[in-house]
């Protein structure tokens, strides 16, 4: 299994000027990123929508790479979006999945059939032209440049160590350093979008 922070550190070296939706990796990414105005650390506005949001962003900004760090619990809620993404074929879309095999933010209960789901196979079956799976950091580090040089949509499933939270939501310390409104305004300013 991989550590999410280590994955993100390696990814950062190859990021270029990609827009990054860090998803559940956000708590680490905010400390690693060097281009926060191209980041979209929204946390979890409503579970099940990460990939859909990132797809929308990729379709609206076809000349910028869009990278999402999705999670398996989120994706299991919305598996059908893989078919939509495959149909739209956004060439700038890179879909990384952090699979910790559990609902980490609710105490670590396993997701359905936690240890036996091959998300890369599902993505390929839905029509993604490129799908990969990693369970060790060395292989991922060796391949990341090649992955990001392919035309999207690309899917990358990675087994990660769970980082379990078991505090009531009201007692958790937020890792987000900007409000959601500030995040979206910062991104749009960076992209030259006038609202």
């Amino acid at each position: 299994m991989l550590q999410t922070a280590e994955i993100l550190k390696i990814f950062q070296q190859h990021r270029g000027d990609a827009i990054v939706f860090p998803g559940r990796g956000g708590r680490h990414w905010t400390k690693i990123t060097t281009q926060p105005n191209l980041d979209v650390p929204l946390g979890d506005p409503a579970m099940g929508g990460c990939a859909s949001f990132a797809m929308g962003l990729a379709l609206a900004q076809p000349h910028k790479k869009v990278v999402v760090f999705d999670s398996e619990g989120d994706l299991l809620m919305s598996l059908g979006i893989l078919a939509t993404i495959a149909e739209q074929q956004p060439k700038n879309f890179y879909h990384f999945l952090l699979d910790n095999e559990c609902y980490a933010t609710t105490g670590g209960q396993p997701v359905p059939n936690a240890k036996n789901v091959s998300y890369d196979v599902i993505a390929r079956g839905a029509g993604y032209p490129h799908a990969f799976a990693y369970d060790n950091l060395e292989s991922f580090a060796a391949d990341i440049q090649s992955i990001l040089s392919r035309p999207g949509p690309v899917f990358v499933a990675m087994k990660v160590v769970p980082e379990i939270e078991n505090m009531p939501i009201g007692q958790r310390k937020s890792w987000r350093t900007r409000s959601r409104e500030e995040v979206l305004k910062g991104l749009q300013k960076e992209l030259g979008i006038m609202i």
Partner: protein
Amino acid sequence: MTQPDEALLSPETVLKEMKKNGVTHVLWLPDSETNWLYQLMKAEPSLTLIVVPREGLAFPAAAGIWAGGKTPAILIQNTGLMESGDSLRGWVLGLSIPVVLLVGYRGWTRHGVTTDTAATFTERFLNAFGINYYLVENNADAPRISVAFEEARKTKRPVAVLVGDEFHGFNR
């Protein structure tokens, strides 16, 4: 008895309103009323039609499209709107996304008792979420669609257009 065309809400009128308001992407899940609109949207080069497999996925996708500087619209049935509650809350209301929801008002009638619970709960659902809405039944009502777009832009909120099911021409 055949209804005269002016008594219908034509798909051409809906498409014209979308184009007038700069819609670039339509998030859509087909329902029994929108076949002709589908064909028109597919043929319209200024629109990207994105079919979602579940209505709740249209809301985060619309948020992403808006964040990227384009103009989404969501075209779904009232049944799917109700399915989408948490996505609507978190991704559109929570992120202040200005988006128009064109909602097929299945079961709606003004000629007697409404027997379809899809219609019974539609306006109650919108009221519960504090979403303003406009009823559109025929071509004469079409300017209300532009009113909805303008209101969404001004308020940075979703605004719904309920397409009255009895009189539209989408099934012709």
